């Protein structure tokens, strides 16, 4: 069968709108995920057994179930949670975007937590002792001394996880959101152009992810070189 290029060109503005939403989910997921994930990582290192057990349980739970299942959970739970918070006594309907942002922060935080924790473990124990000897508070020790080194050590893995996150955003398809793949699906079904639309989004994802992964590879080389 022939591929109709004009159909792709006509759909491009709509696809780019979808891509913008994909980028938004990624940005929120990365920012919120790293912040919440770092808190989880610090909690897992805590001397309080309750705190570390809770953080460990959360991370293991999230890492054991599929993202699609988490999307469904949040999709059903967020209206209840907001209804409860506002004490209206019944679920409140919320937009799909809020649901999606919450999902990706909650889910990706578990994966970022493991990476940041590996970063903390790569720092020599002397750094922790030195912070104590200098009389730094726990908070200042983490913010100024430990966290920057931990992040630097695992930067390539953090970025690779972010590429995975970017690809995972396509799963919001299951609640009919209009990300890049969602936009393509809507055009494909309206115009009967499945082949053109799915091949186009495949190429777009490939170009972006390949470029990003090549960048990470270069950065990895440069960091390894700087460390010598």
């Amino acid at each position: 069968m022939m591929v109709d290029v004009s159909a792709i060109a006509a759909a491009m503005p709509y696809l780019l709108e979808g891509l913008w939403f994909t980028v938004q989910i990624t940005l929120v997921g990365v920012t919120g995920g790293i912040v919440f994930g770092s808190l989880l990582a610090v909690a897992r290192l805590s001397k309080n057994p309750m705190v570390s057990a809770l953080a460990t349980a959360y991370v293991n739970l999230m890492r054991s179930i599929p993202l699609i299942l988490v999307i469904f959970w949040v999709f059903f739970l967020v209206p209840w949670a907001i209804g409860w918070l506002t004490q209206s006594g019944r679920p409140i309907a919320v937009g799909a975007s809020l649901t999606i942002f919450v999902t990706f922060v909650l889910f990706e935080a578990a994966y970022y937590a493991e990476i940041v924790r590996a970063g903390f473990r790569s720092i020599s124990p002397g750094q922790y002792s030195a912070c104590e000897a200098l009389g730094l508070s726990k908070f200042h020790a983490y913010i100024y001394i430990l966290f920057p080194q931990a992040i630097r050590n695992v930067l390539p893995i953090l970025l690779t996880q972010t590429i995975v996150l970017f690809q995972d955003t396509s799963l919001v398809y299951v609640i009919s959101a209009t990300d890049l793949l969602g936009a393509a699906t809507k055009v494909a079904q309206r115009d009967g152009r499945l082949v053109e639309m799915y091949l186009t989004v495949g190429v777009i994802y490939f170009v972006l992810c390949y470029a990003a992964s090549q960048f990470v590879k270069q950065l990895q080389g440069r960091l390894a070189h700087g460390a010598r």
Partner: protein
Amino acid sequence: MSLLFEATPDGAGRYLDWIVSGLGWTLSLALGAWTIALVVGTLIGVARTLPNGILPRFGRVYVETFRNIPLLVQMFFWYFVLPELLPVRVGMAIKQMDPPWGSFVPALICLGLFTAARIAEQVRAGVQALPRGQIQAASALGFGWAGMYRMILLPQAFRIILPTLTNEFMTIFKNTSVALTIGLVELTATAREINENTFRTFEAFGVVTIVYLVIALIAWQIMYRIERAVQLPALAGGGARP
């Protein structure tokens, strides 16, 4: 959890039967795709470590293609796009496969080849982590390329990468849920169907979440035992030592 023992609307059984059927499809898909992924992934991984020729380049193209396109887009490719690109008669035959095979077969191929790219990278890393002396000693002993990989390099490489393979083994179970987008009623889709029939969201999704947790625990146990069983004293601790 009384929900499990209530009759389904079609009157044919209880909701528990739906869960068992969904679990069956999830397990079949995961284990089938895992087999494909191990075979294809090992071949591609070996190809990437060969010194020269067209094979390493083909291996790189394979890995980059399958790793840089989201699984869901690949799923749609095998399900929607491929039958249109093939000759009309073949395409029609694929589209007319009886359910659930019409979605199971594309999902199996998709998940198998997708995971193969990830396993290939691990196999390559495992082979490259071995000391050069292993290849030189094997050549000196008169091994050809095939024998060298089969009897010297791969058995050691697989022991090195077993922990990361364990991760991949658990990932493939979770990734089977993507097959619900092309109509396979696996575990997650079962939860959604029960919810749509009963509106008992917490029970429906709660049961399925617990089932996934149990699978993860069992998969981890299996891999842990394999790891212990095949460990070599010289390699214990994961890396090669002089």
